[in-house]
């Protein structure tokens, strides 16, 4: 247990990122895929804020993390609307069923 430094936070970010990528790749539920996206973005955010604290990135890291949070919320809203539309057309949220272009 050394002093908590940049590497510790980057490790947490990496774990979040990998979990998110695996989640996106393996989940067949559309909402589950969305959760994977959120995990990936959070992994990136942890890295941004850690760099803002420990390197000369300063305030920029926090600002960019804030933009990421805002855009992630927007993305979730639109993706959820698409998921609801998908459900209306297919009566399921299984992304494997979305294999035809005409609804």
């Amino acid at each position, binding site marked *: *247990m050394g002093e*908590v430094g*940049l*590497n*510790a936070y980057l*490790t*947490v970010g990496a*774990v*979040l990122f*990998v*979990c*998110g*990528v*695996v*989640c996106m*790749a393996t*989940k*067949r539920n559309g*909402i589950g895929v*969305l*959760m*994977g996206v*959120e*995990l990936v973005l*959070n992994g990136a*955010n*942890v890295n941004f*804020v*850690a760099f*803002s*604290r*420990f*390197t*000369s*990135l*300063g*305030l*920029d890291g926090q*600002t960019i*993390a*804030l*933009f990421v*949070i*805002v*855009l*992630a*919320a*927007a993305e*979730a*809203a*639109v993706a*959820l*609307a698409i998921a*609801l*539309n998908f*459900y*209306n057309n297919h009566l*399921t*949220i*299984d992304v494997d069923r979305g294999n035809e272009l005409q609804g």
Partner: protein
Amino acid sequence: MIEQLLFYTFAILTCGGAVAVVATQNVVRMAFWLVVSLGSVAALFFLLHADFLGAAQLLIYVGGTVVLLVFGVMLTASGPYTTIKTSPAEGIIGAAVGIMLLLVLLSSIGGVDWVSVSGRLPSTPQSPFTADSVREAHAEESLVNSGSTKAKTDLAAVQQQGRTVRQLGLSFLGLRPDRNLKEGGANGLAPAYFLPFEIVSVHLLVVLIGAAYLARAKRRAVSEDRVSLD
């Protein structure tokens, strides 16, 4: 000591929650573990002295996005506790690829000397976090705690105490209290965020309208009738 304890607690909660999100098949449990994971990320932000960001994470992610996702789960569930199973083979392949990706990332994190790399960033004369100040971070912290009024470390002190609300607000208005704008624009770009802020505001408005339009109640038959009447 306390900071280490808190960091390890929340880091374990974050990573454990994320792994549980991947491992669970039930969507509502996934949402629960996502709440644990994202809430702990907010706690990590507080530990990194980003108080506004932590609050924003709680408000937007945990209180907004996850609620939206749970709402989505409820509206798209065809039966109680929907589980759409991933086949075991896919799960094993995914886990293997994930572990390999994690090992690659961890080795690259460990292989880079971040202090010397961050010294190569274009740092401005008034920037509080030069490569030197990273090395002296602990010295500065102790100076700040003992009430030093060293002018150079003032802004750094403010950031280290986590009072970033005003600075973030000013940077969205196009001002940078922690940078010298005259000498900072080495690449010809102002390092403030007025334009991105405006773009994001308009973007949010567009998303609001777009999401409402996409998710509207379908009355296709009725609207076609109206068209034919017109």
